[in-house]
């Protein structure tokens, strides 16, 4: 990709990540002013699902970049969008957590404690969010330099655990028999499974080329 296109692509990525939030904000504003039904029949559920699923979707999209780069080296430049997507996933997850604290727990510590004591899906969601915190904090170039590439890479593998916890969180909240989370689960499973497969393949190719050269 020619470098001069990069700013445009970045602008599109920002719009894609912020646009839906702006739309949600607009609907919230309208529901508070002119049109009470702007957020649908169950506004709490609308905002909760919108922010929660949005965060998970962005996280899974960010996890697609590495396998795509390995499969199609021509698209290697996509890595420049990985941090952006990851940070937006975290921002959406923060809004989702805020939704919970405001609309479900009503800022009441006993209510949160009660949920933590009894509800695994709350733990799964909280884990998914909490694991993203160190990743967001170490997302700067300075952190990579300070930590060293190897250690930074190891730390950022936490994103796999975060995504798995996110999917688990989704399964635990839907009713038994409902298969709505299946699509994103399969997508995540494929993206995670591709990683060892692609590195094994790369290693094999590597030894072959070395053998051919010798």
């Amino acid at each position: 990709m020619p470098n001069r296109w990069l700013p445009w692509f970045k602008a599109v990525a920002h719009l894609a990540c912020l646009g839906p939030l702006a739309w949600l904000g607009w609907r919230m504003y309208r529901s508070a002013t002119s049109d009470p039904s702007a957020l649908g029949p169950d506004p709490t559920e609308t905002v909760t699902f919108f922010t929660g699923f949005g965060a998970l979707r962005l996280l899974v999209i960010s996890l697609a970049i590495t396998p795509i780069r390995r499969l199609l080296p021509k698209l290697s430049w996509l890595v420049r969008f990985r941090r952006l997507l990851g940070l937006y996933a975290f921002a959406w997850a923060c809004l989702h957590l805020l939704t919970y604290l405001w609309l479900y727990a009503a800022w009441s510590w006993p209510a949160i404690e009660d949920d933590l004591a009894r509800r695994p899906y709350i733990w799964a969601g909280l884990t998914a969010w909490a694991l993203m915190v160190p990743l967001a904090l170490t997302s700067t170039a300075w952190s990579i330099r300070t930590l060293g590439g190897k250690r930074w890479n190891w730390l950022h593998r936490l994103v796999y655990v975060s995504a798995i916890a996110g999917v688990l969180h989704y399964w635990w909240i839907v009713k038994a028999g409902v298969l709505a989370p299946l699509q994103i689960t399969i997508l995540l499973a494929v993206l995670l499974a591709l990683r060892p497969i692609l590195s094994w393949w790369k290693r094999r190719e590597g030894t072959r080329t070395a053998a051919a050269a010798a």
Partner: protein
Amino acid sequence: MLIRKPSMIPSSEITPKEVYGNRRKFMAAAAATAGLAALTGERLVHPAVEVAAATKLPTVKSPLSTAGLTPTAYKDITTYNNFYEFGTDKGDPSRNAGHLQTYPWNVKVEGLVAKPQTFSIDELVKLRPQEERVYRFRCVEAWSMVIPWVGYSLSALIQQCQPLSSARYVQFLTLDDPRQMPEMSQVNINWPYSEGLRMDEAMHPLTLLTFGLYGETLPNQDGAPVRIVVPWKYGFKSAKSIVKIRFVAKQPPTTWNEMASNEYGFYSNVNPDVDHPRWSQKTERAIGAPIWKQRQPTLPFNGYGDQVASLYAGMDLKKNY
């Protein structure tokens, strides 16, 4: 002759609500002389159009209606539904239920009963005067509505059928037709949808054999043409689009109880003191309310404790959730 399906009728050809409203005023006047025949007349003349346009159901007032409640908007009641035969998203039933053929419709009454028989929907509608019953509706998912149902006490039908003394429970079975309900295969549920009540619960005057809401026949997504409404229990106990009523000696298998018995008990009375294993039942979200006003406390027996608590005297409701 080309018989058009509802989906083939352009929306421009569907009579606007105000216009057919006027037609109904005329029909109501006609009904005064023509009697009950006019009640289902529109259905017989235009059965295909019926799916799009509900028919007026004249009602009488009922002392069993809950006073002092503002009903949820018709639009919310008819677009926010759990009816998994038509898909699992709340908006799916209103999108997908249009093709359900609700007329003609028969309900078979069988099992431990002196007079097993099959009722046509017309016979059922006419069995008793239709009453308006405004009830609270509390879903196990912790949202709630207020719905002006139309129907009469199920006990009227039960008395008509004369169950044997060995009949201790009543089972309700929903239509099981993948051709009309293609989304049934999207979920891992053992169809047909089955629900059940203890005989004394079924005989309780609040338990409503329901044919309509907001003074009109039920929209398909709300369980047309006939469903049960049990206002003091979580919504899933109130089976929709019923084709079979079976009197049995033992507690019948019920769909959600079979799916996850730790989450959905046979009784499933609304109870703020017994949480769903995965979420609290202490509060509920009022459908249609602004986001900052949605949360409200959940009442024991959904506010019908004075009428129904005696049914469960001496029972441990934490065990029999």
